[in-house]
């Protein structure tokens, strides 16, 4: 019993650490420490203070470390262009990268600091480094400091109060163990595992900032060393502080067996040792049932136990610590803990009481950068959690950034897969941003002949093609066909059967390479980079300031577009008519007339007939940027005033898109639409009467948010009719990608609009309710990232699989015209496609199964490239291997997307049910076939998937699956999810929350992001200020009894009566404010998203909004986390024979 508590914490951390989520995790950890105490208290005498005390520290310590991670990760993404690192990583996009960082505070708006900060240090790296440097020293301190704070207030109290029931010694014990474990778990463990040393190190390493930089610059190898040493140090410190508890910590870091928890840990450690890692681990888990996070898994395992522990948050609930606790012993396995009481479960209420909320599995942040080699010893390594901060060394398999599979071992038969209840799918993010420290993708030029391919399946040459017959022939790893090696590509084989030149040829030793495409791959010359901006200037748009915001954003963004003759721009505005601008004319006029008083503005060409649109000029509407920059700027400055008294309420969205499309038809390109007013669908319909009637009814329903027949509610989430779909397919056919920025204050029928971006590889940005004050900066940053991020045009993608497996379907933002390929008018680093797989044959046990994603695209510089990512995974016929190698993040992302796909076509209750079943089926299978459980009363979770219930709960409570959401919000959510990357999926349903009122007191070590707090209202105090972010929105909650001083310092508000609905984060001249800005900017950098900031206070709708994110709370329509676990447990029980 006790174990649970212990184990859980530990386990959690490990898993999570890796990911960015780390932050969030940290918080959790912190709490946990607290939790444990509580449990302890409960269980035994009040306290085994020691443990608690100890635990906290560990957490705290871990927290800091994690915090450091975040940064690292931040670095990676936005990539403030670390000159060195940034550039290299992607050969293709270098330039972009530099400029890319979305996060950049908008010039005007955001306090310079963030940016300022970054830029200065040439590379983001440096900056981060410095920060690291700072931290290291502090870590120790911080941990303590912070932990106390966090835990102190939060945890303790609750625990005390709750302590009611208790937990037998077991608990205590568990707790104890847990304690240790946690620590261990605390990221450190994870790292330790294999690369662990390095990773951990790296985390710590930071101190030597400079070195870091260099390290980063130089791939993993360099880095590791540094970190290594550093790590040790840092680790120790952390670990040390909490001596007793510390043991656990220390253990983790080092990978050494943790003390008490040690036994469990021990196991893990073992896992650790074996570099090959996973396999060894695997076995244990099986035995135990717990599972597996093999990669991190080892650690995870260790951790698992802890996770298990967690339990009882619940309301006042008594704690039934044991529930989770149980299995600690089978450390390997997993964690599930819940157990307590099945019986009790019966009466759910009772049960909850027994669960210690603080010991329930929660994400734990990892504190260090993980160094990940994709293959070691000719075996695929389990990838680190997607949200962790990791550096990939491509040693044969594609980086998990590009390709991730829900299970890292492929079941040999479909039966096995079915039994496991798991999903088999790939998340493909072909242009994902690399970590700045990663080696750039190598570009291979095969000259005239083009890349070597299998003559049967057309698969591209990759490291897993087997050369035979002295290299004269090779066997395709995808279709098994034996091909002749092209003459000039032949090379002798070495004694190991590899080609002698394998290591020099990137395509033979790297999982991801880029081939230069030959003419054969072009239907026409690579298209120029065309950016066409379409701006709504209807009355609403003008009056809300949306037009001005859009114009100003475009104006600033223009300067970020690549110079050169290949960059073309066009602009049009629309209300009930469409206005094009002859940009060329302006040029002539300026040159020819040039006299004062003459009008330099370009000629506006109005297309009044929106029923049947056309482009008014064939040329001159889209012009080379270099030719019209000045005039474009002048025009953009003038648009808001030109239309300032526009009284046209309608905006002909569809017609405008169509017209712009006609203008772009010959080239293709990006069409960026700013839409704000209500749009009139009928404007583009051939049979107006049909449209008008249909739409008005729909509009009425949309506004009131109810559908005539409630059962048909989901119909509103489907496009109103096929017009947009038809149009979208046409757009896609001509390589036009549409991004829509919706800046509105009313219902706009996102469901209908979003069809276009989704089909054309674009994306929807949704600002509701739009506020010119607070959203302009985000609009600018979104737009900037949109146009500057690494991206490709006129792309075609196909995923090939080894024999026995085939692609079932693709999901994401694209257009599909033939079954095998997806057409992507544009693809960028953020876009992810889900590819579901199915068996069409039995796979041989022990063999490897390969997946190859080939993306043919045109770079922004006009080169035609083929990016080929290959992932080769072992096949297995052992069920437990599947659980051990399951990838939680990917799996969950898969759930998420499937749910999003379902929502528009099924009633919500059904979708929720399905989601739940997906989760329960897996857990049930695990419980049934893999777990060794002493008591049926225990909920046993596979280590690798131990957070699945939490995320599932989050998903069920998310905007998309809530019944009380606005139709448009849900539509947007659905659309947002459809291209969402794996690392972003988690925060969407389980946002990160942190306290910011005490920023200055916590941050001694320079850690920017405070530890995350579990999403439970218990952790939200009335005298605190909290920040919650999910990658898109950022809420700042101000408690009722907050010290006015801190609100003034942080937000410039002196009393809570003044809390504005429109909020603009500014930097005031005080350290608190500066830190808040740092934190926010750090988050922005991590998320590649500027975040919509909103202030919330208790008692009004904003407060409701904030609390709606408290996933672990009980809500009118949803269970609390503890209740949910109980529910899940019961469901599993019911299924058990």
């Amino acid at each position, binding site marked *: 019993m006790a174990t649970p508590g212990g184990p859980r914490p530990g386990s959690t951390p490990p898993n999570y650490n890796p990911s960015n989520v780390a932050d969030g995790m940290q918080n959790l950890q912190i709490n946990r420490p607290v939790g444990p105490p509580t449990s302890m208290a409960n269980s035994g005498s009040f306290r085994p203070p020691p443990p608690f005390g100890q635990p906290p520290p560990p957490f705290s310590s871990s927290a800091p470390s994690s915090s450091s991670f975040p940064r690292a990760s931040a670095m990676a993404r936005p990539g403030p262009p670390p000159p060195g690192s940034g550039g290299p990583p992607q050969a293709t996009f270098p330039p972009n990268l530099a400029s890319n960082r979305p996060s950049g505070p908008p010039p005007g708006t955001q306090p310079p600091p963030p940016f300022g900060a970054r830029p200065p240090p040439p590379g983001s790296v440096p900056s981060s480094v410095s920060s690291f440097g700072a931290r290291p020293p502090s870590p120790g301190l911080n941990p303590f400091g912070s932990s106390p704070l966090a835990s102190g207030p939060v945890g303790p109290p609750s625990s005390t109060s709750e302590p009611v029931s208790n937990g037998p010694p077991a608990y205590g014990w568990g707790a104890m163990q847990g304690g240790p474990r946690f620590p261990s778990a605390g990221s450190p463990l994870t790292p330790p595992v294999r690369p662990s040393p390095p990773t951990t190190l790296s985390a710590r390493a930071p101190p030597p900032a400079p070195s870091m930089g260099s390290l980063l610059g130089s791939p993993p190898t360099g880095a590791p060393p540094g970190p290594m040493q550093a790590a040790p140090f840092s680790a120790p410190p952390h670990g040390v502080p909490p001596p007793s508890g510390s043991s656990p910590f220390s253990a983790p870091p080092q990978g050494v067996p943790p003390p008490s928890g040690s036994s469990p840990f021990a196991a893990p450690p073992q896992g650790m040792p074996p570099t090959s890692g996973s396999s060894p681990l695997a076995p244990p888990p099986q035995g135990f049932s717990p599972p597996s996070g093999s990669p991190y898994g080892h650690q995870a395992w260790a951790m698992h136990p802890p996770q298990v522990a967690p339990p009882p948050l619940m309301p006042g609930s008594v704690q039934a610590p044991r529930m989770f606790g149980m299995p600690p012993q089978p450390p390997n396995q997993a964690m599930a803990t819940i157990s307590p009481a099945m019986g009790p479960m019966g009466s759910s209420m009772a049960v909850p009481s027994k669960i210690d909320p603080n010991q329930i599995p929660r994400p734990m942040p990892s504190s260090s950068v993980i160094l990940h080699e994709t293959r070691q010893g000719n075996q695929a390594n389990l990838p680190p959690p997607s949200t962790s901060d990791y550096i990939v060394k491509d040693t044969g398999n594609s980086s998990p950034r590009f390709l991730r599979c829900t299970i890292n071992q492929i079941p040999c038969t479909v039966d096995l897969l079915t039994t496991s209840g798991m999903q088999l799918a790939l998340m493909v993010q072909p242009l994902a941003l690399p970590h700045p420290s990663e080696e750039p993708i190598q570009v291979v030029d095969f000259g005239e002949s083009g890349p070597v391919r299998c003559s049967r399946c057309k698969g591209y040459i990759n490291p897993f093609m087997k050369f035979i017959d002295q290299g004269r022939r090779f066997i395709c790893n995808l279709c098994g066909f034996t091909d002749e090696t092209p003459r000039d590509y032949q090379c002798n084989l070495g004694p190991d059967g590899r080609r002698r030149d394998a290591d020099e040829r990137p395509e033979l030793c790297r999982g991801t390479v880029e081939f230069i495409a030959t003419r054969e791959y072009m239907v026409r010359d690579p298209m120029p980079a065309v950016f066409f901006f379409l701006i709504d200037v209807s009355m609403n748009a003008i009056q809300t300031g949306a037009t001005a915001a859009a114009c100003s954003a475009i104006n600033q963004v223009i300067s970020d577009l690549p110079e050169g003759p290949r960059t073309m721009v066009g602009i049009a505005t629309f209300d*009930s*008519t469409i*206005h*094009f601008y002859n940009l060329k*004319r302006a040029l*002539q*006029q300026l040159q*020819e*007339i040039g006299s004062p008083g*003459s*009008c330099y*503005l*370009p*000629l*506006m*060409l*109005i*297309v*009044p*007939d*929106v029923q*049947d649109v*056309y482009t*008014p*000029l*064939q*040329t*001159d509407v889209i012009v080379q940027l270099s030719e019209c920059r000045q005039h474009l700027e002048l*025009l953009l400055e*003038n648009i808001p*005033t*030109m239309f300032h008294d526009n*009284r*046209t309420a309608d905006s002909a969205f569809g017609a405008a898109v169509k017209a712009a499309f006609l203008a772009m038809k010959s080239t293709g390109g990006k069409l960026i639409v700013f839409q704000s007013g209500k749009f009139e669908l009928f404007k583009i319909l051939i049979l107006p009467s049909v449209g008008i009637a249909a739409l008005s009814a729909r509009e009425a329903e949309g506004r009131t948010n109810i559908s005539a027949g409630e059962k048909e509610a989901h119909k509103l989430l489907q496009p109103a009719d096929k017009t947009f779909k038809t149009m979208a397919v046409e757009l896609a056919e001509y390589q036009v990608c549409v991004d829509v920025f919706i800046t509105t204050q009313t219902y706009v029928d996102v469901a209908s609009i979003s069809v276009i971006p989704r089909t054309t590889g674009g994306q929807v940005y949704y600002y509701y309710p739009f506020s010119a004050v607070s959203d302009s900066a985000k609009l600018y940053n979104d737009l900037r990232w949109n146009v500057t991020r690494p991206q490709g045009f006129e792309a075609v993608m196909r995923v090939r699989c080894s024999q026995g497996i085939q692609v079932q379907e693709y999901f994401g933002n694209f257009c599909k015209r033939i079954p095998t390929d997806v057409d992507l008018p544009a693809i960028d680093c953020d876009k992810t496609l889900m590819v579901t797989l199915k068996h069409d044959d039995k796979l041989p046990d022990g063999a490897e199964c390969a997946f190859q994603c080939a993306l043919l695209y045109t770079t922004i510089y006009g080169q035609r490239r083929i990016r080929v990512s290959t992932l080769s995974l072992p096949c297995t016929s052992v069920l437990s291997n599947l659980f051990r190698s399951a990838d939680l993040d990917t799996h969950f992302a898969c759930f998420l997307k499937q749910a999003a796909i379902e929502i528009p076509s099924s009633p919500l209750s059904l979708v929720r049910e399905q989601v739940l079943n997906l989760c329960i089926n897996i857990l049930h299978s695990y419980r049934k076939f893999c777990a060794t459980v002493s008591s049926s009363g225990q909920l046993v979770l596979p280590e690798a998937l131990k957070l699945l219930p939490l995320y599932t709960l989050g998903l069920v409570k998310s905007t998309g699956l809530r019944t009380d959401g606005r139709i448009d919000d849900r539509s947007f959510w659905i659309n947002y999810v459809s291209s969402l990357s794996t690392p972003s999926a988690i925060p969407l349903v389980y946002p990160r929350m942190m306290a910011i009122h005490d920023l200055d007191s916590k941050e001694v070590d320079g850690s920017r992001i405070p530890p995350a707090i579990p999403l439970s209202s218990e952790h939200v105090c009335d005298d605190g200020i909290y920040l919650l972010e999910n990658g898109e929105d950022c809420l700042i909650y101000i408690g009722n009894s907050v010290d006015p001083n801190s609100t003034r310092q942080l937000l410039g508000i002196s009393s809570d009566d003044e809390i504005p609905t429109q909020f603009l984060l500014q930097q005031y001249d005080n350290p608190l404010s500066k830190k808040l800005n740092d934190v926010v900017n750090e988050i922005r950098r991590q998320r590649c998203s500027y975040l919509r900031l909103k202030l919330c206070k208790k008692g009004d709708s904003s407060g409701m909004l904030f609390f709606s994110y408290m996933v672990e709370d009980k809500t009118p329509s949803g269970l609390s986390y503890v209740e949910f676990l109980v529910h899940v447990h019961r469901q599993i029980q019911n299924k058990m024979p």
Partner: protein
Amino acid sequence: MAEFLDLEAQDAVRMSWNVVPGTKQDSSHCGVVPIAAVYTPLKPFPSMPVLPYAALRCRNCRSVLNPFSVVDFVAKLWICPFCLQRNHFPTHYHSISDQNLPAELFPQYTTIEYESPSEKSTVPPVFFLVVDTCLIEEELGFLRSAVSQAVGLVPENSLVGLITFGTYVYVHELGFGQIPKVYVFRGSKEVTKDQVIEQMGFFAKRPKPASGVIAGVRDGLSQETIARFLLPASECEFAINSILEELQKDPWPVPPDQRATRCTGMALSVAAHLLGTCVPGSGARIIGFVGGPTTDGPGAIVSKNLSEPVRSHKDLDKDSAPYFHKAVKFYEGLAKQLVHQGHVLDIFACALDQVGVAEIKVAVERTGGLVVLSESFGHSVFKDSLKRVFQSGDYDLDLSSNGIFEVNCSKDIRVQGIIGPCASLEKKGPLCSETVVGQGSTSAWKMCGLDKATSLCLVFEIVKKEIPEAIGQSANNQFYFQFLTYYQHHSGQMRLRVTTLSRRWVAGPGSIQDLIAGFDQEAAAAVMARLVSFKMETEAEFDPIRWLDKSLIHLCTRFGDYQKDSPSSFSLSPRFSIFPQFMFHLRRSQFVQVFNNSPDETAYFRMILNRENVANSVVMIQPSLISYSFHSSPEPALLDVAAIAADRILLLDSYFTIVVFHGSTIAQWRKAGYHNQPEHVVFAQFLQAPQDDANAIIKERFPVPRLVICDQHGSQARFLLAKLNPSATYNSDVPAPEREILFTDDVSFEVFLDHLQRLAVQ
């Protein structure tokens, strides 16, 4: 003849029969030459008074008090000559007496104008320029400068609007605030006025009136909105010039085997919608500049494919011009709309190929528009004509607008219709004949545009059946006609011009001499020319030559002096003497012999014919030829090939073309440059004289005629030769050595006359 000219000088009217056959039977004996009047409503009369008060009208038939009214000064009554209604004079006429007559009762003021000071249009004249851009650069340059010049000539307060078109129609917003704006309409798709109103946001800022919108200020359209498109010339000249300066050739690519996509019909239609929306009922002109065939949208006359030629007369005859009827139908609709709005369509068509004037004709003619056909925008025919439209001064056109023309006449007369630039207002009444010629079945017509030369041809019919006894004795053997023209003078004032005519009628067998005396052969020729043109256009299977010959023979049979079956005894009264010659030339003219011309040209010639007065019409039918020689002062010459002599200069005026033809000797001298030598001043003067005369003609004429200066045996000489009577051809019996001969199989006038005599006496 002179008396007819006098009559014309007084009332601007020429009638084919100035003594009217008094019964239906008599009139049928007059042959096919109808009782018709060619009336020029706005002919300037320097001595004509303009009365500053409203006209006094008969309360029964609405005719206006005139010198033919019988006035009872004592009872203060006047009797309407048309309906014999007795009307009391209103109080302000109380001082009337035989010593104190109001001007309208003066016998010499049968034509008089009233101008009521209160009625003045608030909208200045409007010019809506519609400019083709599917032109080669050179032509575009010409057009640009011509239009720009024209805009400079427009009176400052006149409103000006601009549309350019090619593949699309671009409506330029001239009153732009910050940015030059253009509304772009697709050329291939018709739009309605309501769509234009909606799409161009005319009522964007205020509620649109519920229904029956015509628009304009009256319907709540704001002045400000109108000013987006129509601006006083003084304010928009800069804007227009800068637009013109930047005017580019239509940017849409034209494949080598295709014609440019040109949507003339759409452009004109949009212009009409805009004017209808902004200034309905006010004087406004759409001036279209067209440089090629319409190939897209409504009014297309030919496909884009170059392998398909533009329709010819032959195609029209065989009904194998697939676009023709559709296009005509479209322009009929446009005409109807314009007439309803009171707006004018002018067309300046300049192209080597046809542009579709034949189709547009209906819209131009019904609205009283001007039309000019030339081969290039650089040609003086176009440039000078355009200048004339806007010019003010001695030769201005006195463009007036918004006219309504009404007719009153004695009860035994019916109006069959009007052939000329006007449109029926469909005011049916007892005056209307059942036979319709031209715009008929009405007694009121709309003349959206009219100028001082516009001449209408009214065709009457006598319906009196019985011949009352003692005709001669009857006190009242007069027919009265009254023409009322209510129009907007170019000053903006509304005016009413009243012309009242009285013509004696005769009846019975003894009336022939009277009829002969009243026959105006020039007027008759002009009427016949309009009539034959009209019939050719409207009657299928119509054989104009046969019809003309029959008419002529019939006329000669009836009015000739001869013994039966003795051709040599045949003679005609001087009143008829040259009528056969007119008919001869009419048979050979461009109005009847259409196969020498494209349908566009024919339409053009006929449109001009239909708006010109008798004198000019006669020139078109039978050109005038003046011969210059050293030996005598210039003298008219026979329009015969015999007029050509080596030592003479001929000046041919065929209305559309003026030819200065140098005999071969003169030509040699000129080529030798004698006229540049001081000792040959006389020769220089001799050379100059015909050109001065030609210039004098050119100055007065609209459209400006084409001046051809050519030499004998030169290629350009064909302009002269084509018009000459082929009295000597290559198969003539005795070709004199130095006499010019014509290569034609046409019969000569002598042959024609022989036949005529022979047939007339049978």
